[in-house]
């Protein structure tokens, strides 16, 4: 589904990704771990198409189609979703209104009419039940005054509504207590299928106890320096990242 080949990317002329290779197939869960500043969030933003990031070299394709030249919204229309580490507030715009706009803009891009209101309502009801979200929450302004847990749960709710092919969860565990973490992880697991794929970006192993990865990659200094299975995550949890750095620098 997602193929990244020798990807180099920079922001404000500072090279951050220095040759990433990654392949994610439908039905797979990949975890990307690494110390702070290794380029994890940059990778997420580059795949999602954030403009400030310059792709200097390499290829990103989705289902065989090059997507580096596409705008962020065009990638979203093709099924790329990113759960933000710090979801932004949009005062005066309710979660429901935001989702309605997002879904209808995506439909418009595909040449479809707006989703009929009753269909939209049905979908909102189903997805909010699936993720155990109180529907009162959906009439609140997007992320305004939300707790850390509410923000992340709202991200997963949006993922449920948009039904992406590829979901990138950027540090979804940061700022969450263990209960909130479990709720968010359960949501992701419920949305997983053989047709979609998930990339989990995290600093800590604990999220991976709930969202179990098929593959774990360690990102360091803009490169994937080690790949393995979930055992690798445990090893990192125990030993930290220093031995990886030493291996690389040796």
């Amino acid at each position, binding site marked *: 589904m997602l193929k990244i080949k020798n990807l180099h990317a920079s922001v404000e002329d500072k090279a951050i990704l220095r040759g990433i290779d990654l392949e994610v197939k439908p039905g797979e869960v990949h975890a990307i771990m690494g110390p702070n500043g290794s380029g994890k969030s940059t990778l997420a933003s580059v795949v999602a198409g954030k*403009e*400030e990031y310059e792709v200097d070299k390499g290829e990103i394709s989705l289902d065989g189609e090059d997507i580096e030249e596409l705008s962020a919204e065009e990638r979203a229309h093709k099924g790329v979703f990113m759960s933000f580490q710090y979801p932004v507030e949009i005062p*005066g*715009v309710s979660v429901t209104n*935001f989702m309605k*706009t997002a879904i209808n803009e*995506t439909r418009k*891009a595909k040449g479809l009419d707006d989703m009929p209101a009753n269909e939209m309502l049905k979908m909102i009801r189903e997805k909010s039940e699936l993720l155990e979200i109180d529907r009162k929450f959906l009439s609140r302004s997007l992320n305004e005054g939300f707790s850390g847990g509410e923000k992340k749960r709202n991200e997963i709710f949006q993922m449920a509504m948009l039904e992406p092919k590829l979901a990138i969860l950027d540090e979804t565990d940061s700022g969450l207590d263990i209960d909130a973490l479990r709720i968010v992880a359960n949501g992701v697991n419920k949305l997983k299928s053989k047709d979609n794929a998930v990339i989990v970006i995290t600093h800590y192993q604990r999220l991976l106890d709930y969202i179990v990865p098929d593959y774990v990659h360690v990102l360091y200094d803009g490169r994937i320096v080690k790949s393995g299975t979930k055992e690798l995550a445990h090893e990192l949890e125990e030993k930290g990242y220093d031995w990886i750095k030493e291996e690389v620098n040796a």
Partner: protein
Amino acid sequence: MSNKYTEDDLREELKTKEYEYGFYTDIESETFPVGLNEDIVRAISKKKEEPEWMTQWRLEAFKIWKEMIEPEWANVHYEKPDFQAISYYSAPNSKPKYDSIDEVDPELLATFEKLGISLDEQKKLAGVAMDVVVDSVSVATTFKKTLAEKGIIFMSISEAIQEHPELVKKYIGTVVPQKDNFYAALNSAVFSDGSFCYIPKGVRCPMELSTYFRINQAGTGQFERTLVIADEGSYVSYLEGCTAPSRDENQLHAAVVELIALDDAEIKYSTVQNWYPGNAEGKGGVYNFVTKRGLCETNAKISWTQVETGSAVTWKYPSCVLKGDNSVGEFYSIAVTNNYQQADTGTKMIHLGKNTKSTIISKGISAGKSQNSYRGLVQISSRAENARNFSQCDSLLMGNDCGAHTFPYIEVKNKSAQIEHEATTSKIGEDQIFYCNQRGIDTEKAIALIVNGFSKEVLNKLPMEFAVEAQKLLEISLEGSVG
């Protein structure tokens, strides 16, 4: 009428003034020669067949105006108009400007299209000759009939001066006196036309009164004068303006609006202003210098709601004088400036009575190289026991070249007053845009969404139909504001 002043008389009179004006204007064109003096004021009044008291009132205003100087305290910069280079009377243009819609500027039509204005309305607004006007005529007729049954008077101020001189004489200038300010004095001397509305005691006006119904008959003038009187216990909701872009050759607009809410009455006054703002380089555009004020007697309430997106320079402070005890004043405003537009707008809440209450919600949105200022005064007089005010001024900036300014003035002379003031300034961030983009919403739509969310508290105050149009208008006004 034996003393009817004919065009021939006027022509004669003007001929004799030929030297004074330096040239002769053919009166067929229905436009007066440029310049302003007592004779012009008299001529306007005569032309409109006004009674002597009205003529005198205008002349008094003119005398005051001559002694005044144009104010410079507003945070706007523009080349001052040459008041002697303006023609102060132009008859309502009854002739259509175009014979067919194909002659109208396609850009204007495209905007109409976006606003969802019907073809017939488009023609009307653009000044295209209409072959079939059955629909609008019948609507207007039904409308007038309903109003007449309730005893509501709704007509042009010129007609009102003829037909209801006692009402006009009693109230005109009582809220905005001739000497109030430079532009109000000018307007008082030379006002061309405007609207008059009177709601009798205890009557609730059953529909939104809109100048739109009149505009087709009279056309707006450069110096409009509006007078709305809500008698005891009555209610009226009045809509002014139009979301459709108004192209106008007149650079200077100096209107005066006076509202009078007698005991227990309520007036809701909503405005959408979309005068030509000039082009993207800041050339051209309308100067909009407006004085709007309402007077509240006991238990009365006046709400001003405005959506200001047009004009090159806006100078406007719809205000409330809360004279009666327990009276309420409200001001809800959205002011959008883009490109080189400048707006200095806000309100004055003058608390005179006991237990008076006022609310101010101002939303300023600046884009491009524009400057957007909120200027407000909350004044609590010494005998206004238990007065309360809540003010909230929010500014939203787009890009790095625009400005938002807030000038709140508070004068309190009574210790029992409770005053709250909140102000925020935010910027549409790249992060917000990217968040929307990532969800499949393009940048233009994202800005519209963010701006509408920001303005929601005010948009909610507009009558339903107006609100939908105003929302679209905000989107259009900010088109292309982020590259």
